[in-house]
């Protein structure tokens, strides 16, 4: 195993898509998934993944809030977070990048682009 990726998204199709994509293209990566922000923050602190993929819209919370929670905890502050957002507006992208996200991909994302971004942190 090269590393682990935590994907926080409440849409099961998306999780399944990334799971199958990684199984096919990056079998060396182990994927963990969480469907809420709170679960995601807990899982991140527990498993210390190498990379977090974060949906911008989660039930009851926002990507920015989750980003802040991750940054506030020493256990997770150093983990790079890539935003996968349904809202592609430049303002949203700027806000999240300013809040500490390392990258921003608009949904629907191109799977090759996603692989490239993951590959940057897990070569």
């Amino acid at each position, binding site marked *: 195993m090269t590393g682990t990726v935590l994907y926080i998204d409440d849409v099961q199709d998306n999780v399944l898509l990334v799971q199958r994509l990684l199984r096919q293209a990056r079998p060396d990566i182990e994927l963990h998934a969480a469907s809420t922000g709170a679960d995601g923050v807990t899982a991140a602190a527990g498993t210390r993944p190498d990379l977090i993929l974060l949906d911008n819209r989660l039930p009851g919370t926002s990507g920015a809030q989750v980003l802040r929670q991750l940054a506030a905890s020493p256990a997770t502050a150093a983990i790079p977070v890539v935003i996968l957002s349904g809202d592609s507006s430049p303002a949203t992208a700027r806000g999240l990048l300013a809040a500490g996200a*390392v990258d921003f991909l608009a949904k629907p*994302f191109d799977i090759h682009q996603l692989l490239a971004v993951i590959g940057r942190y897990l070569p």
Partner: protein
Amino acid sequence: MRTRETGSQQQLAGPGWLRRWWLDRPVRVKGMIVVAIPLTALVAVTSASLALQHNERLVRRTALTALALNTSAQLVLADAVNAESGMRGYAATGDPLFLQPYNLTLANIADSRAALRAAAIAEGDSRAERTVAATMTREMSELAALKSAISAGGSVSSLVPLLEEGKATMDRLRGQVAGLVQGPAAVSAAGHVNITRMESAIDVLSIAGLAVGLLAGMTGVVLFASGISYRVTRAAANANRLGQGQPLVPVPAARDELGQLARSLVHTKQLLDSRAAELVGARDEAVRASQAKNTFLSSTSHELRTPMNAILGFTQLLQMSNLSGEDQDSVTRILAAGRHLLELINELIDIARIESGGFSLSVEPVAVQPVIEESCQLIAPLAAGRSIAVSQPLPQSGLTVSADRQRLRQILVNLLSNAIKYNRLGGTVAVTCQAPGLGPAEVAVTDTGPGIAAEDLERIFEPFERLGADQTAVEGTGIGLPLARALAEAMHGHLTAASVPGEGTTFTITLPRAQDIVQAPADDKLVPLRPAAPGEPAGTSLRVLQIEDNPANIEVVSRYVKTRPSIRLQSVTSGMAGLEAAAREAPDLILLDMHMPGMQGDEVLSRLKGNPATAGIPVAVLSAEAAPAVIHRMRASGALAYLTKPLELTELGRLLDTVAAGHDPPAEPAPGAEQP
């Protein structure tokens, strides 16, 4: 305002009802009242004075009459005394000279008695006068008898009874005259006193009347004028406040003209306020609607993109697997349709964002020619499929406009694909660009399609207005042109259409020219790069980090780098990711884009230079911005080189060679190193 109001209360002091009554009089009545008060005072004083004068005249006349009676009675008495004295002398001496007074009296007696009679009649005391006249007549006859006796030479003793009788008559006359004169003399004396008193009363009255009249008049005029002018001033102030939308100052209610004016101001204010309230309501409604629309858009965007993610994602997964030929084709078609749907969604969201003002552009100087070339390349397969020849302007046009490069390309691609889709088979599409004089730049796309009737030329810019194209096989979203026009306008340009039916249509994009595109001065040129000698190995194992958000630019660099196996390229799409990667990887060279979401190139550069771990890494800035000031600033901040976009690959090659060879950059500038 407070003190002036108090002043008004004082001006209008008095019982409440009087003030009320005064306020309610029309202004002209107020004016008449103000004039009438002093006039009345003057008239009253003048009448009193006249009445006094009349009385004085009466008294004066009574006194004069009394005086005349007195005088005439004294004259009669004097005549009688003179005559009697003369007669006594004559009796004593016999000298006829003593008869002179008697004769004189005899001559005057008629006149004296007539005067006394007239005075007595005027005085109204004719009875006493008659007594006096009778006594006088008797005296005179006695004197006449005495004279006759003397003349006859009678003895003294014979004369004595006559003389005594005359003396007694004389004494009676004296008493009667004194009685006659007594009343009028008193009246005359009293009248004199009265007249003096009345004269001084008239003087006092005249002066006092004049003073009162003047004072009342002036006071009235001052009060009237200041009251009116105060209220007019206040009405004017209220009108002014009305104009400025401030609350009105309360004004005492009154039924006169000024009160009506104040009331109508209040009514106007109420009307304006209710209108304003309606407007505020309407605006709030509109703002709420706009917010609702934005929220709807945002959630719709998310809701639509979520399933699209699964559709496109799983389809791509399928495409990666080993499918049979027909299945592979099906998957490709699903993917194409999915991408078309995504494009439609994106265009809809773009239009809605532009309309609601939540649209952001990154406007910078953009060379038009390369954008046209890129756009033509993108639609080349579509043109080839319909055997349509696309002609481009000559590459020498160095026209630069102020635009968002990606959006300009979006407009051009849209116009080009329309020109191909709505063209005849084997037709042509011509792209031209020009900038007449110093005016804006014009980029035109002309097709040889059926053209559009003049009355329909504006309709094509309405959303979902496809002019019957729904019945044809031409596919389209129906919002491409509205979006293209909205984008052009958002970049301070225009998009217009002109057509000759049967011959074709020309769409013209007008954009402001970028004025700051000038050649950088020689000492600001970027660090020159040694040209790679032919056949020389271009360095070994050079690790390059590209920080760039534009996929097209990433693609360009990565394609070029593939031709040089010794270079390992890594790309990140944001400044933050770039900083991390730079610190982690310590690459040999960083290619830095200027305009990125989140963190701009300037900041990335200063952070790289500020971190000891990355400060030594050479940084080359790649930017569409060619303003000398920017180049100078980036060089001053520590950039090794500044390459302008669109990237000249030979320049990039020389840069890579220089860094790979570990050469210090020579001092003289390389020609054309920052030419677009």
